[in-house]
């Protein structure tokens, strides 16, 4: 989800980062690109305008052009702003002190209310162990209540539906009925309606006034365009909802609608729905999504972590050694350890600002057990062997393999990789740029 915005940001900052220092022109270019990326992500035009304005003011105010890592500063600012728009903090589900807790779902036609009703019911039941039931109050769309009943039956959830009655009557009767059957949580599925349809909106207002649900949730298609803000605003004016269920996030939508709504009407996204299966549903985590939008998961954490674990002096020493072709296993294991301090390889990759990383790394099986094996092999070497790998002969290999619980072929493989790495690094250093970690 949110892949597009992610890619765009990755592009922009990858370019800036490679250039090192930012010029005022760069900053303008970055802002233009961010603007375009956000617009193409369906972030509302007015929100984009404000967003860019804010970032620019903050960026200029902090003299980022003079700072050593201007691009990181910009990233930091953009990241913070997106999080502040998406509304930080994780929102858990809260229940009424006296059951049943009543949820009501509303939204335009085709946003996925019926599916979301079932998914929410399933989610609350499985996660909080409550007895959940649903009410089918969509009397307009042909077979809508049948759809809800079918889905409910599939996952063993009680459903209340009635023919030839008005939605309000169905709901009131339903709550009464389900209360008696011991439901802790009741979720009401309403008919899809246009926010500009006065009659239908009146019906919804009427239901809300009479039923007083504890949580009213707007179901919003994540692929909605610029109108998302107006749609949400009208619903909010009429029935003041508490939060949003963002659906169809399994598409490659850029998801800007969520950002806009948060910014304009300050109502949080509470849940996300991400597929055809009933369990493809979760609580929305603003911080996680923000870092996804930035596409750097967590470039900031990554940079901070890298700075903490990589010793400048040591890096210089290693550079010298590489130039002199003296790199050995002691250094190798040292470097490996410091990188691994940042977390699992998978996690490190997820933090890297690399384009299409999922595609890039999908074929490469870098798992931590492999690294563990490498470390074990090196640890089974004598100090002399670590410094002078070329003395490792057949009998030494056997010993190392036995000591590290690996096979001789594993030892051979590592030695071969190491000598290849030495060659590569030597070639790099020949360009006169020296060797530095690639980030």
């Amino acid at each position, binding site marked *: 989800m949110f892949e597009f915005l992610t890619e765009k940001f990755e592009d922009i900052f990858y370019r800036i980062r490679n250039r090192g220092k930012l010029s005022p022109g760069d900053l303008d270019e970055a802002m233009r690109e961010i603007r375009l990326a956000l617009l*193409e992500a369906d972030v509302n035009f007015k929100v984009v305008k404000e967003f860019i304005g804010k970032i620019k003011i903050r960026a200029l105010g902090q003299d980022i052009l003079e700072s050593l890592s201007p691009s990181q500063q910009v990233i930091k600012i953009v990241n913070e702003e997106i999080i502040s728009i998406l509304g930080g903090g994780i929102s858990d589900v809260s229940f009424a002190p006296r059951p049943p807790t009543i949820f009501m779902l509303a939204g335009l*036609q*085709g946003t996925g209310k019926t599916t979301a009703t079932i998914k929410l019911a399933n989610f609350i039941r499985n996660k909080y162990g409550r007895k959940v039931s649903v009410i089918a109050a969509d009397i307009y769309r042909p*077979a*809508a209540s*049948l759809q809800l009943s079918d889905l409910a039956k599939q996952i063993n959830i009680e459903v209340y539906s009635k023919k030839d009655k008005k939605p309000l009557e169905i709901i009131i009767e339903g709550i009464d009925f389900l209360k008696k059957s011991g439901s802790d949580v009741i979720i009401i599925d309403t008919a899809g309606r*246009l926010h500009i349809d006065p009659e239908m909106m009146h019906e919804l207002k009427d239901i809300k006034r009479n039923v007083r649900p504890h949580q009213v949730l707007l179901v919003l298609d994540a*692929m909605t*365009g610029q109108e998302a803000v107006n749609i949400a605003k009208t619903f909010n004016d009429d029935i003041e909802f508490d939060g949003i269920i963002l659906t169809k996030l399994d598409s490659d939508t850029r998801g800007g*609608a969520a950002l806009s709504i948060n910014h304009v009407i300050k109502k949080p996204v509470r849940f996300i729905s991400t597929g055809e299966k009933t369990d493809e549903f979760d609580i929305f985590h603003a911080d996680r999504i923000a870092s996804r939008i930035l596409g750097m998961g967590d470039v900031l954490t990554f940079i901070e972590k890298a700075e903490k674990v990589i010793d400048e002096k040591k890096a210089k020493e290693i550079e010298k050694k590489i130039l002199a072709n003296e790199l050995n296993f002691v250094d190798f294991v040292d470097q490996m350890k410091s990188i691994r301090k940042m977390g699992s390889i998978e996690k490190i990759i997820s933090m890297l600002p690399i384009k299409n990383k999922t595609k890039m790394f999908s074929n490469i099986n870098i798992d931590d057990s492999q690294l563990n094996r490498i470390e074990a092999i090196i640890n089974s070497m004598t100090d002399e062997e670590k410094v002078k790998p070329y003395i490792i002969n057949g009998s030494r290999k056997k010993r190392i393999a036995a000591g590290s619980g690996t096979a001789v072929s594993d030892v051979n493989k590592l030695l071969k990789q190491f000598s290849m790495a030495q060659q590569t690094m030597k070639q790099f250093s020949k360009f006169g740029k020296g060797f530095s970690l690639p980030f």
Partner: protein
Amino acid sequence: MERLIKSINLIWNKFRRNNEGFWEELEEQFILNDVSAATTSMIIGDVRNHASMENINDIEKIKELIKDRVKKILMPVPPVPGDNGMNLLQGLKPSVWMLVGVNGTGKTSTVAKLANLYKNNGKSVLLTAADTFRAAAYEQINHYAELLGLPVVHHQRFSDPGAVVYDSIEKAVAKNIDLVLVDTAGRMHTSYNLMEELKKIKKVILKKLNREPDEILMVIDSTTGQNAKAQVSIFHNALGLSGIILTKTDGTSKGGIIITIKNELKIPVKFITSGEKLENIAFFDPQKFTDMLFPSG
């Protein structure tokens, strides 16, 4: 459907002395209507160049230039003289149309509206319930079939949609039906397996009919934003779309996405729908659509 540009006159008056502001605000209006940034800047750029080359400074003339540019994009290539859409059925019998799209765009309602439209024009129509996935999808289409007094071919839920289509065409041939409408399950364009399933349905039609489906129409919800382009381009790559049906135009979204789709992907809109009633469907008319976007005055 509302007009695209609130009022060019208003913007013009606001920026009478400042051309830059006028073009910028015009650009904003396009983007606010979900026209992509690329297509917007192409339209504005073209009109601006044209205006400056011919030294046009009159608001009415500039408005005409904008309208013409948009209309040129929306016009089918080549335009069919006197086309009222009924010629879509002038090929071999039965004409087989597939309706496809992501979830919740209104495929089933649109099938019902098309069926009603052609039935009222004296054509025999057969409905095909090829959405065997969604709960109660058959009951929904069957409801419409009963309402319209039309036959519908269906199998059990979760059965192979290809088999439903096979049976449907066989029945249509036997009964000399004019139009077979195939309602497929909504699916995300990002789901590889489900897109492959659609290709399979298309193959079944090809095999049974000895030609491709006569129309493969993608149903697009007019509230959709920029993602519409990704949707259409992936469905088009998989199936080769013949056109778009724009739905829910009675909402507040103006359907600017179809300008992007036609401009960048060259796929024309064939129908628009605008309400919950069966008769709320119309052949797409670029002239009317453009006039609606830019009302005079």
